[in-house]
């Protein structure tokens, strides 16, 4: 169809219009790209260049001083390790629970699946609110423990819906029926047939949960008090947003220290976002798939 289109010469008006579309998209591209490039360039510049506002596009007097300061900062390293822990363990828990509910709900033979689906989706529309939830977490003794970041928000309803739609649309009923006739138990069927077949959806769920967990700060803000438990995002908040960075940098005189703190902010932004942004181009298709699973079929 596309090859056929090319044979017809487009009118002048159409070509001008297309030119305008290219221009529009290029402007959007630059608007999104520029801040990202600016941050990266600043993070690689010298503290003096950043403080003097000499960085426009490319790094000035390239140094790795900013990164050295970041990696010498114990708070940041500790937060990084904590976030890795929360992300890995949290994702494991979340994906397991999501599949545990999504698979049975996708089976026609599962009695009561539509009331149960309503039971779950209703929580998306109406919730008890901040304080009532906080009190539940408190009464379970989870406040100021690592559990508070792993359990209370372990399952996202829309992940359940996505996974369920996947199971419904890509695992034929006949497969289960055949296994049943052969005397295969449900659990064995799940482990030896469903899990291998579900790799794409497991990838989608893991990525979404992992990014969510890595980027979250709200639960940590309300549930944690001990600093040694803080995930990276809370440490970032203290240094970047509340401007408590100065105490953590040792660099002789006042002015120098201030400049270093400014530089460190840029490096810190890069370091904190890098894990996600580096893997993102390779896994983008999974995210898009995640968003579109089901709607393609329906």
């Amino acid at each position: 169809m596309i090859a056929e289109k090319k044979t017809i010469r487009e009118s002048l008006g159409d070509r001008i219009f297309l030119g305008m579309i290219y221009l529009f998209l290029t402007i959007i591209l630059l608007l999104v790209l520029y801040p990202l490039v600016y941050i990266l360039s600043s993070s690689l510049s010298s503290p003096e260049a950043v403080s003097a506002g000499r960085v426009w596009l490319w790094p000035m007097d390239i140094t790795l001083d900013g990164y050295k300061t970041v990696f010498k900062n114990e708070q940041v390293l500790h937060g990084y390790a904590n976030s890795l822990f929360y992300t890995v363990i949290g994702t494991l828990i979340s994906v397991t629970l999501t599949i545990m509910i999504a698979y049975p709900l996708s089976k026609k033979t599962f009695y009561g699946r539509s009331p149960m689906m309503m039971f779950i989706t209703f929580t998306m529309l109406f919730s008890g609110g901040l304080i009532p939830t906080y009190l539940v977490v408190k009464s379970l003794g989870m406040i100021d423990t690592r559990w508070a970041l792993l359990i209370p928000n372990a399952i996202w309803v829309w992940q359940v819906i996505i996974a369920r739609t996947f199971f419904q649309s890509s695992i034929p009923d006949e497969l289960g029926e055949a296994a049943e006739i052969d005397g295969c138990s449900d659990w064995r069927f799940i482990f030896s047939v469903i899990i291998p077949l579900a790799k794409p959806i497991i990838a989608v769920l893991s990525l979404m949960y992992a990014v969510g967990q890595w980027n979250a700060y709200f639960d940590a803000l309300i549930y944690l008090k001990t600093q040694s438990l803080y995930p990276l995002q809370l440490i970032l908040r203290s240094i970047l947003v509340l401007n408590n960075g100065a105490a953590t940098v040792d660099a002789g005189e006042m002015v120098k220290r201030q400049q270093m703190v400014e530089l460190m902010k840029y490096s810190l932004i890069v370091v904190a976002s890098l894990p996600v942004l580096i893997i993102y181009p390779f896994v983008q298709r999974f995210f898009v798939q995640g968003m579109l699973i089901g709607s393609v079929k329906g």
Partner: protein
Amino acid sequence: MGKSQRTSFWGVVFLETAVIKKRVVKTKGKASYHWQSAKKSLKRHWQLYLLVIPVVLYFLIFKYVPLANAVLAFKNYNVIQGIWGSPWVGTKYFEMFFHNPSFVPLIKNTLSISLFQLAVGFPIPILLALGLNEIKSARFKRTVQLVTYAPYFISTVVMVSIIMLFLAPRLGIINTILNAVGIDSINFLGDSSWFRSIYVFSDVWQTAGYSAVIYLAALAGVDPSLYEAAKVDGASRFQKIINVDLPGLMPAAVIILILSVGNIMAIGFEKMYLLQNPLNLSTSEIISTYVYKIGLLNANYSFATAVGLFNSVVNLTLLLVVNTVSKRVFRTSLW
């Protein structure tokens, strides 16, 4: 809880639930005919039911118990007597909120930021998708998508610090540029009149590429024969967009619109809280940040629960109303 999920994602979810709903209706007759079949299913598939139990418990404990705990709003909570033992006070806390001097500003701030966000954030992803759909160079298209999608993965904390660094009165790049063209520096975050624009445009910067994905998918699903018909009729590129592409993404757009209007009172806490400072509080204090402050910081549990409950009820009502209207007008609805 942080309401950090983006509206567009909800759009997909609801599109999907709609699909599932249809299937459920189809199979309902089969699935629910007798208790007998339930017993048979339970006997044969007990392992599946066992699997579901932990998840059901999760929802009961972390979603439904808090729902029951919301009775706190009608009680005078004290720690010793607990939620159920504390004395009833009726609607005292609701009245307290309605007569509170911060009631009107809270509603006003919440509404005006939401409406502004809707006005800017709704059309831009559509324009982006329509534009991308016209591009034949796969490489350019991929590049634009990859780059515009990327900011979605930046965390709220980092996003807010980027805003702060860029808008800093002395060294921020925006003010450096303004100075270069002879305009005095502006203390953007210290000026309450700038707050809405900062919030909304940074949000668009972060999510437009992401939200465009849904519309691109809708456009990919447009029947190719419509394009051929348009070509035969000699439609220009612009006419094709108006008459074929736009109607093609209408259903998705309506769903997103319903959800956005339904969420108009539910602006996320995370970004707002970080952007707040005493200077911009007059436009940046919204219901969710207010609940956090009076509830958790000042430990005024009952009052905060009442405010939160009021907000939840308003949200649900809005969603139901918009959904019903949309069902009548556009023949599209969430369920």
